[in-house]
């Protein structure tokens, strides 16, 4: 499952956020779908994704059993192959793109590959319309995200919300997103380091580290 619908932000803020995912329908097209899901991810990996995921693993995953030297030599390089190799059962696989031309080129190739699986794009309404039109595809269905109802004022400020809601399952806590913002503001982390730290908490692989880095940079600039 990739709950990417309720990312917080304006339409303009999704200019570097295009998620394409393939999902088999249970009992209808899930027989022998593993090779198709892997091929889908292989196509995605060719088009400069910001992240890919298989529902269980992101391209930048938590590391277990680190050596103490890891504090100075932390890996920040995504591993596409591990995500592809570990697709083990029917489920959603996804890729996140930070540039529309990459998303469009990937989607075009996915259309031509004709896997027979449902393919969705999660981004702004207008972004998806443009990509569909450019690839000669008619949209089948659309699910709009309505704004959060928060009558009891539980939600934090927009900067924290934008970072936190990029993990649709809520694994990036408000407090941790705020901690990363504070660490960058205090010069204790670079925006890139902070984004790479946040992305590890999202097991589905839909967290967008490119957008996160940009949002952190913008938040820090605003404060100056």
């Amino acid at each position, binding site marked *: 499952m990739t709950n990417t619908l309720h990312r917080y932000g304006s339409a303009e803020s999704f200019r570097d956020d295009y998620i394409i995912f393939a999902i088999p329908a249970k009992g209808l097209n899930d027989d022998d779908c593993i090779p198709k899901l892997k091929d889908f991810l292989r196509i995605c990996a060719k088009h400069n994704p910001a992240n890919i995921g298989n529902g269980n693993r992101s391209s930048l995953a938590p*590391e277990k059993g680190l050596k103490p030297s890891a504090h100075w030599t932390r890996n920040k390089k995504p591993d596409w192959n591990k995500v592809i190799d570990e697709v083990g059962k029917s489920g959603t696989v996804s890729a996140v793109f930070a540039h529309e031309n990459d998303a469009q080129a990937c989607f075009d190739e996915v259309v031509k590959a004709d896997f027979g699986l449902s393919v969705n794009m999660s981004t702004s309404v207008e972004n998806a319309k443009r990509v569909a039109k450019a690839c000669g595809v008619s949209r089948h269905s659309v699910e709009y995200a309505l704004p959060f109802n928060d009558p009891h004022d539980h939600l934090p400020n927009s900067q924290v919300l934008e970072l936190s809601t990029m993990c649709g399952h809520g694994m990036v806590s408000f407090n941790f997103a705020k901690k990363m913002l504070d660490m960058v503001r205090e010069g204790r982390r670079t925006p890139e380091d902070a984004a790479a730290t946040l992305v590890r908490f999202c097991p589905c692989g839909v967290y967008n580290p490119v957008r996160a880095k940009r949002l952190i940079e913008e938040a820090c600039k605003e404060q100056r």
Partner: protein
Amino acid sequence: MKINQQKCVGCGNCVPVCPMGAIYVDQSTTRATINDDACVECGACFRGMSTENLNPTMVRTVRKVAKFLRFRFEPEPDVCPTSAFEMHDLEMPRLIRQIFSDPVVEHKSTGIKGRGTEEVKTNDVNPRVGAGEVGYTIEFGRPGVGVRFFEIQNMTRELARNGITFEKKNPITHLMTNTSTGDLREDILQEKILSAIVEIKTEITRVEEVLRIVHDVNDKIDTVTAVGISTRCDENGEDKILDPLLEELGFVHVRAKTNMGLGRVTNQIELKKIEEINI
């Protein structure tokens, strides 16, 4: 979820990681501790944090020396230095927390991980929302607030009272003891989860009414809700019904999941069934 008190060194790295704010460093023991009532068993701490396997005594000694010298070590903020988190087997009703909160745990009623279903993501293959119909996903507790089942029940009861029926292949519907009243299982009502999604479908004419119900019930329950609202596009890939209606009702809707219509039935058994139906 448990924190092994023999292993924990009280570094506090895990405290901000918890989406529910359930982890704190107990001042009396100087060890991280979990508030079991607030914990939703999501696994963000256990799975999301990277780990080292350092000797706890050695780490505590180094920390004491560094503290004495007013020396500040800046560790990676997502690392548990002693692998102190332990996940235990859970039993009902507490197990329900993990099922609805941990995204890598599959829900048995739907075969899908997490708290959702296929929604309109497979609408091109498995038509759930047809032309002129509107599907709703009413999500509770996310982002970052959490929800208890009795609060969800307030919503399901109100929807049921208004004659609205629930999507059958949905984890919350699966927990109902009576789908015509919206009642949920008694034993889970006090359990807290990260989020849950109630799915319904109505005619287009009821959109305003449904959104008003959601808004009014949300005023009375101590959580957040987020509504996803879906429809089928026309033959040209356009939505000329729901989009303008939402505009007219004043709902901002800049983001969407768009089903691109590439799916088709490929399972052999289903093809046979379809052929039989056609004959």
